[in-house]
C-alpha cells in the first residue's frame, strides 16, 4: 500500500509539473527536478510491489508441462522455486545495501535537487528487505501445502499482465 501511495504521489507530481509548465506564461512553473522524484518514487514503489507480487503468486510461470504431474510434485517444485526466490531476494537486498553504503560514502547527490542518492537507495532497501521476508514466508507456506496437499495462507492468485 505504501508503494501504491508513492506511485499515486509520483503521478500527481508529474501532472502538477506539466500543468505548471503549460502555465509558465501565467507565472506558474514546473516542479524542479520532477523526473528525479519520479525515478526515486518508481524504484521505491516497484520494490514495495515485489513482496505483494510474491505473496499473490503473481510471477509468470509456464504451467504447460507439469499440470498432469499431480499435486504433490508440483507442491515440491513450489517449495524449491520459493527457496530459490528467497535466495535471489537475499542477494538483491544484500548488494543493494552495500550499494547504498557506497553511495553514502561517496556523498553522491542528484543533479538538480541535490538530495543524496543513498536516501532513495534506503527507501528501495526497505522494499527489498520485506521482499526477502515474504519470500521466506512463501517457502513456509508452500512447505505446508506440500504436506497437506491444500492451498493455504491466503494470497489468492491475481491474473498476470
Amino acid at each position: 500500500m505504501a508503494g501504491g501511495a508513492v506511485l499515486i504521489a509520483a503521478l500527481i507530481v508529474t501532472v502538477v509539473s506539466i500543468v505548471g509548465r503549460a502555465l509558465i506564461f501565467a507565472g506558474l512553473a514546473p516542479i524542479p527536478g520532477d523526473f528525479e522524484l519520479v525515478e526515486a518514487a518508481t524504484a521505491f514503489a516497484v520494490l514495495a510491489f515485489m513482496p505483494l507480487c510474491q505473496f499473490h503468486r503473481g510471477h509468470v510461470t509456464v504451467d504447460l508441462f507439469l499440470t498432469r504431474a499431480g499435486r504433490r510434485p508440483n507442491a515440491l517444485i513450489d517449495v524449491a522455486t520459493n527457496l530459490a526466490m528467497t535466495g535471489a531476494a537475499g542477494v538483491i537486498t544484500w548488494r543493494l545495501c552495500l550499494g547504498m553504503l557506497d553511495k553514502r560514502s561517496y556523498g553522491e547527490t542528484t543533479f538538480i535537487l541535490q538530495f543524496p542518492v543513498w536516501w532513495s537507495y534506503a527507501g528501495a532497501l526497505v522494499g527489498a528487505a520485506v521482499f526477502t521476508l515474504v519470500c521466506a514466508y512463501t517457502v513456509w507456506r508452500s512447505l505446508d501445502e506440500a504436506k497437506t496437499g491444500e492451498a493455504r495462507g491466503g494470497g489468492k492468485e491475481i491474473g498476470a499482465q
Partner: protein
Amino acid sequence: MSHLELGLWSFPILLGMIFLRVPIGLAMLAVGFFGTWLVTGSWIPILAQMKSLTYDTFSNYSLSIVPLFLLMGQFATRGGMSRALFKAAETWLGHRKGGVAMAAVGACAGFGAICGSSLATAATMGQVALPELRRYGYSGALATGCLAAGGTLGILIPPSVVLVIYAILTEQNIIKLFMAAMVPGVLAALGYMLTIAIYVRLKPGSAGQREPAGMGERLTALVAVWPVLAIFAVVIGGIYLGWFTPTEGAAVGAAGTGLVALANGGLSWRGLGEAITGTAVSTGMIFFIVLGATVYNGFLAFSQLPQEAATYVASMGVSPWLVLLSILLCYLVFGCVMDSLSMILLTIPIFFPIVSVLDFGLPLEEMALWFGVIVLIVVEVGLITPPVGMNLFVINAMAREVPLTQTYAGALPFVLSDMIRVAILLLFPTITLGLVRLLY
C-alpha cells in the same frame, strides 16, 4: 568451455528451468548470475554489478511509464467505459450480419486505445459483450473466439506496455513505435470484422439478427464515448506534439482515466484499493522479469554470443527474408507456451542484432519500427492459439457453458486473419511506416 559455448548452453538450461515452472524472471536472473560468474571466472564482477543494477533498473525513467500505463488500464477497466464503447459500436454495426460480434471487436479496439494490456481488454470487454452476443443468438465458438481475438487489439493499439519494453531494449523512440503500430492495429480490427462477415456467411446458424437502431440512439451512444477519445487524443497527441514526455503522458492518461472512473461511480475506496493491488502485482511481475532479463543479457554480452551470431548469420549469405521468417516462426512456436513480455525480453537482445545486419532495403530505424510491430503481432497470436492461449482461457472462463474446444475452434479463423495480415505487413513495410514518415 569457451565463452560462446557457455552462451549457447544457457538457452537449454534456461528453457528447462522455465518448463519446470520456475518463474521466468527468476530463471533468467539465476542463469545470468551464474553464467557471468563462469564467463568472468570470478564472483567480483557480477556482485559489483548487483550493487547498483537493481536500483538503476527500477529507477529507469523510461520504465516508470509501465506502472502508470498499468494503472491507467486498471482505472479503465473499472470506469464503465467498456460499456459505453460497446453500446456505441453495437448501435452502429449491430444490425449487419454478424454485426454484434463486429461491434465487440470494434469496442475492443476502442478500449485498446486506453489500455495497454491484452488480457485486461479481453476480460473487460468479455464481461460487457459476452452476455449480449449470447442474447442475440451468437454461437459459443464465434462469441468467445471474436472476443479472445479482439482482446489482442489491446496491446497492438497504443498505448502498449510491450512496445514500451521493446522501445527501451532497442533504443527506439516510443512515440514513433506507437505511430507505427497504429495503422496495423486498425487493420487488425478491420481484418477481424471481415473474418466475422465471412464466418457468418459460411455458417449462417452461428449468428442472430438485431433490429437497426435509430439515428438518435446512435448519436447518443456515440457521444457517450467522448472521454475515451479525449484521453487517447490527449495522451498520444500530447506526446507527439512534445507537450510532455511519454512517462508524463502516461501519468496524464492514468489521472484522466481515474477521474472518469470516479465520475462514473466506478471507483469507490475499495475499487481504488483493488486497482492499486492489481497494478502492484503486475508491476512486480514485469519488473522482476526486466531485472532478470537485464542480468541475463549482461551475461550474454560477456559471452559475445549476440555479436558472434549476427556476424555468423551475415556471413552465411542466405536471404534476409529466410532469416526473418525463421525468427518469426520461432516466436509463433514459443508464443504457444510463453507470455509475450518474457519472450520479447528474452529474445530481442539476440534477434535484434541479427536482424539489424540484414538488408531489407530500409534504413536501420525504420527497420527497427517495422520489425517491432511485426514481432508484436506474431507474439500476440500466441494469446489465441492452443494450448496456452491466455485470452482463450480468460474468455472461456466467463462462458461456462461453452466447451474449451469450441473456443479453440472459434479462434482459428482469427489466427488465419492474423497470418494474412503479417504476410501483408511483411510485403509492404509502407503500411507500417507510412504514418511515421508522414508525421516526421
